[in-house]
């Protein structure tokens, strides 16, 4: 089915472990984004990508790594998870970066 899918939906990991959140879109949108959503902070941009092999930092990039070797995939890696990274993570895509973002259903990550 066309759309944007995130996996896993739920993840529990331990402090210090590396974890990768996956995002896949089928529209060939050029722009892709990673946000985290926390109470009291709303949606905050972690990283974004304007095209394959082009990525840039957002508002809260520390502790995260992204890559985009293919247009349709934009994985987010937490290199050494910390409790402060417990959050709901949303991936989004957009054509040309404007006129509305399409969001995935989110990954709820808990770091214990």
């Amino acid at each position, binding site marked *: 089915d066309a759309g944007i899918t995130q996996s896993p939906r739920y993840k529990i990991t331990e402090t210090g472990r590396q974890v990768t959140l996956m995002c896949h879109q089928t529209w060939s949108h050029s722009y892709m*984004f990673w*946000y985290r959503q926390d109470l*009291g*902070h*709303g*949606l*905050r*941009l972690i990283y*974004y990508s304007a095209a394959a092999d082009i990525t840039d930092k*957002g508002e809260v990039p520390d502790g995260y790594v992204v890559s985009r070797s293919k247009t349709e995939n934009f994985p987010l890696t937490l290199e050494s998870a910390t409790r402060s990274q417990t959050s709901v993570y*949303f991936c*989004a895509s957009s054509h*040309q*970066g*404007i*006129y*509305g*973002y*399409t*969001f*995935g*259903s*989110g990954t709820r990550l808990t770091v214990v």
Partner: protein
Amino acid sequence: TQLLEQSPQFLSIQEGENLTVYCNSSSVFSSLQWYRQEPGEGPVLLVTVVTGGEVKKLKRLTFQFGDARKDSSLHITAAQTGDTGLYLCAGERTSGSRLTFGEGTQLTVNP
């Protein structure tokens, strides 16, 4: 400091009532978007407004962009329980720049 301030943060009303949600900023935006988010799901785009003073209607929802392009409002007429959700405004400072989101208004419509 939030670039986009939404008010109220929480709103609980009865089915059939009207309501207005506000999104304010001291900054000018080239465009502003409204999203609705339901529990366990990502935000879904409702509308994009780009011209100062613009009014757009989506069934019982009316969106307005301020003349100075610093603020926006969402008015819902005769609210239904299906309108329950988190309403987020998001602004683009310049064309092609990244969206900045407000913290949202949590709306609960009671039967």
